[in-house]
């Protein structure tokens, strides 16, 4: 079974994962291509709008305002959706959300459930939960389908199969879909996916989607996509289940006029994505007969409670920061071992997962160059938040050897007597390690640090010792 729930998998520190990733030439070539292509498109379509910076200001402000009004907006959204015939569920954590989805899907009599690409359902490990319950999740986004068939984790928020080239996808389809004659033409591969999924769409009983936003005052849920698989799922299924993080709600209908300009241009570099679906509850004679909206916390309120980190919840998942990141460029997404990779992942994951989450190495997987903040459509200060997260990691590691050594040093430096005794001790201990007045050989925990560094040795006589000797003479 695929390790979709990255958090439940064994955490791997970024430096060791990156070391393996940078030797994978194929992935690095593909990632470079993805970054260069999408970045160039994004720059071109953002430059088309002379009010782009004003849109970013509005985007940041309206996301902030929505977050600060969550207490009112969520019940309002619930009320609007319920009045339109939808059912709203609340889930404190991933487990609770998965239970709700499984229960609803079972009650709808489904064996197979169709899925629209959704990072939130990846985050909670929904596919694995469905499989455990004997239900078969079927990913309908082309790249997600590729990942599902290959039993691999997505490597990019926006183009999850970017680590695979056309020949690899052709071989995968030949093997898993039994299409012997298939060539590696992208058109033919997309056609194969269309044929493979069409029957499933037409018989769909239950479909599951995420949400890009929801408007509280109208009860409208919004899904943006390109292929039409999102429309198929949100329109043709008898029962539609949408899993949405509570931070995705916005206050007003006209907030969409900002987000629907910022998101496609920042994400795929299109003026508008091919399809945007907007719906409220259920509509007699048009679309699903039952609609369930699952409002998910799973760490969002933890981020909300940290006033410095709170702006991370503005994120609209466009992945512009990932496409700008020089570190991601070298390692690709798999090295992060998280659902949300790249700069945004490094600040979002520690917040969502909390203290039991991934190793504290992610906030350090950045040169703090700031390219991510320059492109963020909702102006999240990603470098600032990386430093904030680093601070939390360092504070939490004060219990370890490093913390103990620093506390000891503090005591030594606090008293002249202790300091001078330490000097005399160091002079004796350093002897085997000193060459030409420098300490060049380190052992124990310092070995790694010292492999490319040296320190001036403690001198045979300090100034104070010389002064004392002079008096005696």
């Amino acid at each position: 079974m695929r390790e979709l729930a990255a958090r439940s998998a064994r955490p791997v520190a970024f430096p060791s994962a990156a070391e393996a990733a940078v030797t994978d030439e194929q992935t690095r070539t593909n990632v470079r291509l993805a970054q260069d292509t999408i970045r160039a498109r994004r720059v071109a379509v953002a430059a088309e709008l002379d009010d782009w910076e004003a849109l970013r200001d509005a985007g940041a402000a309206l996301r902030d305002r929505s977050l600060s009004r969550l207490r009112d907006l969520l019940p309002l959204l619930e009320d609007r959706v319920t009045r339109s015939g939808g059912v709203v569920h609340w889930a404190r954590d991933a487990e609770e959300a998965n239970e709700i989805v499984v229960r609803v899907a079972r009650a709808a009599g489904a064996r197979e459930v169709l899925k629209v690409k959704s990072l939130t359902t990846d985050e909670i490990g929904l596919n694995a939960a469905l499989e455990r319950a004997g239900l078969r999740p079927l990913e309908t986004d082309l790249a997600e389908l590729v990942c599902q068939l290959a039993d691999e984790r997505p490597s990019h928020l926006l183009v999850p199969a970017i680590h695979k080239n056309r020949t690899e996808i052709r071989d995968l389809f030949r093997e898993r879909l039994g299409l012997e004659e298939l060539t590696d033409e992208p058109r033919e591969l997309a056609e194969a996916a269309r044929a493979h999924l069409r029957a499933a769409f037409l018989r769909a009983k239950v479909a599951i989607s995420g949400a890009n936003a929801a408007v509280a005052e109208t009860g409208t849920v919004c899904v943006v996509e390109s292929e039409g698989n999102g429309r198929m799922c949100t329109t043709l299924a008898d029962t539609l289940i949408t899993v949405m993080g509570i931070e995705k709600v916005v206050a007003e209908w006209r907030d969409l006029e900002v987000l629907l300009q910022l998101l496609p241009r920042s994400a795929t570099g299109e003026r508008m994505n091919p399809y945007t679906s907007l719906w409220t509850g259920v509509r007699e004679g048009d679309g699903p007969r039952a609609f369930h909206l699952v409002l998910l916390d799973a760490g969002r309120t933890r981020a909300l409670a940290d006033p410095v980190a709170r702006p991370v919840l503005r994120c609209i998942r466009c992945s512009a920061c990932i496409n700008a990141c020089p570190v991601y460029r070298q390692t690709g997404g798999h090295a992060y071992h998280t659902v949300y990779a790249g700069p945004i992942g490094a600040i979002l994951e520690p917040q969502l997962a909390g203290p039991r989450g991934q190793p504290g190495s992610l906030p350090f997987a950045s040169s703090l160059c700031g390219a991510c903040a320059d492109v963020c459509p909702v102006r999240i200060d990603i470098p600032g938040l990386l430093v904030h997260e680093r601070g939390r990691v360092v504070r939490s590691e004060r219990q370890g050897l490093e913390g103990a050594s620093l506390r000891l040093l503090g005591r030594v430096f606090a008293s002249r007597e202790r300091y001078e005794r330490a000097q005399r001790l160091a002079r004796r201990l350093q002897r085997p390690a000193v060459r030409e007045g420098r300490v060049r050989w380190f052992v124990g925990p310092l070995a790694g640090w010292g492999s490319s560094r040296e320190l001036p040795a403690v001198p045979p006589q300090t100034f104070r010792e010389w002064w004392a000797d002079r008096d005696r003479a």
Partner: protein
Amino acid sequence: MTAREEILRRINVALAGATAQPVPRAYRVAGELDRDGRVALFRRRVEDYGGVVLESAAPGETIAAVLAERGARRIGVSPDLDEALLPVGVEVVADDRLTPRQLDALDGALTTCAAACAETGTIALDGGPGQGRRALTLVPDLHVCVVRRDDVVETVPELLARLEASARAGRPIVLVSGPSATSDIELTRVEGVHGPRRLVVVLVDRPPA
């Protein structure tokens, strides 16, 4: 404590002392182009994403030609589509709760739209007269959409303002910008995946009344 109470309690605690700031809306809301300018821009932008745009004084004939050219013999329409738009020489099937399989057996769908946006080359469907339900413009492989020149606005805010009443009334809305597409394989854009592979926009002056 229910999950709802617990989450709302956590939010209350987390936001103690937080205040809501106003949203600066200094971005462009109203466009500047005249009608011809809007229509010309709309046309370029739809074509940019692989849609076909035709201008027509006699929509019935133009639509018939479009369908004939693409080999579409059976097309689905909303039962309330204006008769002036019905093409001759093709079988017209009214979508009276057709099943997905029946929709799949159609060669195309012919609809009107609620509004269109020039800047992004977008057409908006809100289930109004002549537009049918969402599945009609989704399952068949060809979508022919009649757009009145007067319904073309310039900016995204203008488009969404046009749709606000429908959203408040709880009507489902779909925004369509070109045919379905994917760039998932080596970022090569392929037009036509699950949604209609071909989108034809027919620009008309006069209504469907």
